């Protein structure tokens, strides 16, 4: 671009952005260095490097929040919720695009309008409804609740995408004697994968990190997700920063790894997803 011709100026801009990037990284620095110190050393100086590296805090944090359990619970809740909402959402979106009629048009409008309802506006009765249907305090239960809340965005994004898939493929499949079910599962669904990836990414960032919904419907210690495990740790050991910081790091690591591996997809997914909505 044009600014190429102003090399010194470009250098100044690079330095400014670099400083901002370092400021953005600094919270991670503080958390990591202090998680390796004993409590007394944190209180003395919460900015310095540790005098000796000690992993005790991590051992204590791992056991206190029972990390393997909360990690597995988060994994189960996130993956089953997303698998279900993608399948149900794709089926509904495809059918509404290909066989439009008044009722399915109305259903689509309902899905889209529900996107403006803030979660906090329905959470009080939602707990009551969940209780009515036996969905409280269980992992399958919260998965079904996520199906409900995830449906609008999923249907909306896939609905837009199905319109761009040429009809001819399905039509020739019908001529070859395919049933509706076969043509959806064998032909259309695989073609939807670009948008399915976007949906999976957006919903993973939401469900993996979600706090309020699990707080309202999961009670037993054995079914806590990572955010709930961390929250209850802080409830018990307020300001015990040595092991608390180790807990926070363990909570962050899985999703950071997920991000770094799938970085390019995530950023494409986010820009595609938000421009559509």
């Amino acid at each position, binding site marked *: *671009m*044009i600014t*190429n011709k102003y090399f010194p100026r*470009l250098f100044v801009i*690079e330095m400014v*952005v*670099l400083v*901002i*990037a370092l400021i*953005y*990284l600094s*919270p991670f620095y*503080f958390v990591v260095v*202090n998680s390796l110190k004993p409590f007394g050393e944190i*209180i003395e*100086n*919460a*900015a310095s490097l540790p005098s000796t590296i000690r992993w005790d805090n991590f051992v204590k944090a791992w056991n206190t929040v029972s990390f393997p359990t909360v990690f597995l619970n988060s994994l189960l809740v996130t993956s089953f919720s997303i698998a279900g909402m993608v399948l149900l*959402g794709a089926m509904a979106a495809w059918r509404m695009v290909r*066989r439009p009629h008044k009722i*399915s048009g109305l259903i689509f409008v*309902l*899905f889209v309008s*529900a996107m*403006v*309802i*803030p*979660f*906090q*506006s*329905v*959470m*009080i009765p*939602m707990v*009551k*409804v*969940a209780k009515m*249907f036996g969905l409280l305090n269980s992992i399958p239960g919260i998965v*079904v609740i996520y*199906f*409900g*809340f995830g*449906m*609008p965005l999923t*249907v909306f994004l896939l609905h837009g995408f199905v319109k761009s898939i040429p009809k001819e493929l399905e039509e020739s499949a019908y001529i070859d004697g395919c049933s509706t079910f076969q043509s959806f599962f064998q032909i259309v669904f695989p073609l939807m994968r670009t948008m399915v990836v976007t949906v999976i990414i957006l919903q993973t960032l939401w469900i993996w990190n979600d*706090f*309020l919904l699990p707080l309202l419907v999961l009670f037993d210690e054995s079914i806590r997700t*990572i955010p709930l495990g*961390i929250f209850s740790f*802080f409830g018990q050991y307020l300001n015990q920063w040595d092991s*608390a910081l180790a807990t*926070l790091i363990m*909570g*962050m690591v899985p*999703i950071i790894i997920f*991000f770094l591996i799938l*970085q390019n997809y*995530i*950023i494409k997914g986010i820009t595609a997803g938000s*421009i559509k909505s």
Partner: protein
Amino acid sequence: MNNRRLRDIREDIFFIGPGFIIFTLIVLFSFVLGIYYSFTEWNGVNKEALWVGIDNYLQVFKGDEQAGVSAVFTLKFTLASVILANLLAFFLALALTLPLKNAKLMRTIIFLPNVIGGIILGFVWRFIFTNSFVSIGELTGIGFFELPWLGTPITGFWGSVIVFVWQRTGYLMMIYVAAIVSIDDTLLEAAYIDGASQLHMLTKIIIPLTVQAITVCVFLALSWTTKMFDVIFALTKGGPFGSTETFAMNIYYEAFQYNNYGLGSAKAILFFIVVGFISTAQVLITKKWEVEA
């Protein structure tokens, strides 16, 4: 003919039915039930909710000081955060679409906080404000770090804004980057040859051509800030003295801590109306702006 229609209906039910039924029961049914609860007094335990008409709504406006404090905090927080996060994101996007050496790495770093849960980020920053800042202040003597962070209503407010901006700038920046990259380079080159100043190119070419991204980003930032819950719940717990309690937190406390489900529901419905009004107004205003630009 009849057979075919029957088959069509069966297939409609098979494909659309499951998703729509779950959605209806969990979201729509809850929403309607919430409207009903908002006209009742109910503690969550009793079998029957007692019909009280519009008393709960009157109560929110007249007898509930904390609800007012939360509403004002949420509005101020929204205003400051939406503006600051978007300005910073836009200028970072401008800089990071220049041919800088480490542009990709810096984008990744600035985006990173977005993938981490709000509860975790809130606790991280509680530690930084109350411990690391103190140590930095002692070492450097810079007044900014020696403020009583999170200890007063003002530092609580700006602390919340700082965390929000830090958390979300990267997301908005990515959307702005995509919009700026898609601007036709020949336009900028032509303007440059014609002797346009950098400021001119920004205000006459870049901003008008990224108006759509601005609409999207303001919309997103509004929906995050008006509904803010987890980050501040972990950061300040609404303190000191309820001064940093968001309206979403106020609804939560009303229902699940004080067990006033009716009053909580009335607040939830008002919340829906106000948030809906703000986002509709924003979309309409920026759409008009898009046409003019």
